[in-house]
């Protein structure tokens, strides 16, 4: 059983209307890192809540470690670590009490690791209550609670949201150490493309209720390129969209930006050959540009 998390054709919506997740199939294997990308409201948190068993799918199935998180919540949650941006730990609870609670609930709690992490994060006074901590410190406490029981799967829902860059970097370091020492699988959602690139692994893009892209990060970057085509009379968006290997076209000012699957030189040649476009510029782009081009909105230039 190497599949840790499996969603098959999962449908989930809220309050009628279009479902937020409409037929999503995703699989996370052992020792994999999966980054969930998507615009706000695309369904990343919904997907992670489904994995945790906090939501139930309207259709399709969710399996974690081969079990249904709905029917075996305790068995599943014992092997998962969870950190979320909107996780609200009880404000009146002392740090030490929270650790004691987790120690009791998770039999595989490692006290040495807890000591090491609290030393590293500088959480010395364990009597402080959660409401007196800064955002970064509270997130660190949540991280310690999530990793000290050596989970097989770490679920991170925008874990670095709202943290300063130094705190983000520390979070990343801890995650990578965990990855190295325990071989934990990680599924995380993030808006910081720098962090996504550092953690590498697979990248899954959620858009419009389905998975638009699911590929290895490096392959994604090396096999896709963005073409910037200045507008010209007789050239319309639909014609570009019809080209094979074109994933998306959008209007930005007085140019079209199109995402293609293929080498830049080939795409340039294809544009010249099929549409007669000679002054297009095709490049491989970093992940952030790719994300914006794939899911960003249109920007029309006002007619002057």
């Amino acid at each position, binding site marked *: 059983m190497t599949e840790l998390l499996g969603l098959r054709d999962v449908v989930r919506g809220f309050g009628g209307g279009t479902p937020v997740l409409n037929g999503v199939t995703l699989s996370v294997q052992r020792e994999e890192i999966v980054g969930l990308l998507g615009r706000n409201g695309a369904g990343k948190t919904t997907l992670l809540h489904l994995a945790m068993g*906090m939501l139930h799918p309207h259709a399709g199935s969710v399996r974690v470690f081969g079990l249904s998180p709905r029917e075996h919540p305790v068995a*599943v949650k014992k092997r998962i670590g969870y950190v979320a941006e909107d*996780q609200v730990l009880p404000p009146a609870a002392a740090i030490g009490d929270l650790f004691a609670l987790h*120690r009791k609930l998770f039999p595989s709690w490692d006290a040495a690791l807890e000591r090491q992490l609290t030393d590293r994060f500088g959480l*010395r006074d364990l009597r*402080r209550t959660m409401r*007196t*901590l800064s955002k970064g410190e509270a997130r660190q406490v949540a991280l310690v609670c999530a990793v000290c029981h050596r989970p097989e799967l770490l679920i991170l829902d925008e874990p670095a949201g709202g943290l300063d860059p130094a705190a983000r970097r520390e979070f990343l370091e801890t995650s990578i150490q965990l990855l190295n020492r325990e071989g934990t699988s990680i599924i995380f959602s993030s808006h910081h493309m720098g962090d996504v690139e550092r953690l590498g692994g697979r990248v899954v893009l959620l858009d419009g209720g389905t998975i638009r892209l699911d590929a290895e990060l490096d392959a994604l970057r090396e096999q896709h390129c963005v073409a910037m085509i200045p507008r010209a009379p007789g050239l319309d968006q639909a014609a570009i969209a019809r080209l094979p290997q074109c994933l998306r076209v959008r209007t930005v000012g007085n140019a079209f930006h199109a995402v293609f699957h293929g080498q830049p030189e080939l795409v340039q040649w294809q544009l010249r050959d099929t549409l007669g476009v000679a002054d297009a510029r095709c490049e491989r782009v970093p992940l952030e540009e790719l994300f914006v081009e794939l899911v960003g909105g249109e920007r029309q230039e006002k007619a002057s």
Partner: protein
Amino acid sequence: MTLWLMGQYLRRPSVWSVSLVGAMLIVLWPIAAVSTASAIVVIQLRFLPGRASVFDAALPIAARDIVAARLFTRLLLMAIPTIACVFAWRGSLAAVWPLPRVLEIVSIFALALLLPFCVRPGALNMPPHRTFVLPFVLLAAVSGLILWLVPSVAGAVILGTAVVALVAFTVASMPGSFERVAYGDSVHGASVAPAPRIGWLSDGAISAWRPILQSVTPWPVFLSFCFMVSGGWIGDWLLYLVIFSVNAHLMLRQRTAWLYALPLSHRARLLALAIPFCLSSFGGLTIGRALPSIGGLERDMAAEAPRSPFEKDKYFSSPTRVPLTYWKRFPARPLPPGATHIGRQVEVMSPWGESAVADTFSILGVMYFDPYTTGPHSSTRFVEWQFGNATTAVYGRSISRRDYEDETIPRPPRLVDTWSVQLLGGGLTVASLLYLLLVFELPLSARASRFKPSRFTMVTLLLLFLPVYAIGGVCMYNGWRRGGSIALPMIERALLAATRALPDNALVIAVIAAIPPIIMYMLLDRQFTRSEFPRVSPPRG
């Protein structure tokens, strides 16, 4: 500017709807005036929370205007029920309290509403709760003294002036802009030299479960407990039960959301939610009922009896009044010996031929009559005879009128206060509390998430709360017409009948009393396995 801000606040329907509902309740159910008013105070504290938000503070509006707007909005919201009180006074409230006293009480509630603003008025964030303990205790003590010692008119004037003075003081002492204040225990970061490690916390069970204990005891739970104690003491607790326990429950849900990520079974989470809820409501009620009664609200025979005649030809003031618990239904049941009926009038006849027209009361078309009535022209002998009958029904044995009114002779406990009735009643109460939990659990199931949350919640609450609304409506209407309460006496009636039908065995009664709660708990358990992570709106990440 202040007026404009007030308009903005009042535009929120939740804010003024509470006030309107409260006013309706006071008019229709004057006996419930105190409980309604206190409920309004508490609910206002939640819906129009005290200070300004960060958004307000960033606007180019003077802080003084914002605070003034909030203060006046609260006073305005108190004004509507006050007017209702004055109106109701002209009806039946006059029998209970004179107008100056009503105004005193209203002023006290207004002061309670305004007090949270007056501690450090310039601060943007609310001071910690403990700073309010002393001011509220002082307020309670001073108002108690005024109510007790000072004649009502003077008291009303003093308290009214206090309200005006408080508003003026607060508004005048506002600085030009708000200020975020760091109260005591919000120390951020490691700017202090690291303290020596506090060893490993002793591995007692307390330390581990403390975070959960802290989450399941937010302030509304304590508030609900206090109000249930006072409600049980007074004897009129149904309204408290609905309002305060619901309030406590909603906050409990918010506070325990973090437990969903932990490997706790459904049962553990259910118990964490249900036990504090039931303990605070039911426990408070039990303690309240066990407290010795205060003067004037004794559980005497005529407590909660209908008292105000709407029709002029009814008496309703006989010395042998009993609450609806002991009235007889008409005409289906065999009439007690000596009672005859002519048309819609019932006459009660004594063995020696004297008769009196019984007071009647019709609820939803069913007529009830008081078999222990005496008329205004009845003889002393008749009154004594009826008194003996009434005390037999209420206390289980006949007491003469002289003995009853003699304060040195202790009265036996009422039949409804015996353990068997209490056990059955307790079982039913716990079952209703669990039923309430069930109603709130329904919108959280996965199936429910297909529908718009507001619609589903509304439908569920409407359907399941319909009996409560219906009963409440009937009570309110009849309470307005005649005074006295209806719901509790009717329930006591059913319980008395049930005790009579069951054998007098403690074990049997305990088992039967336990059945409804157990059934409810099983339903609740099943529903809990279907419920999801509680959230207000779909996640946005």
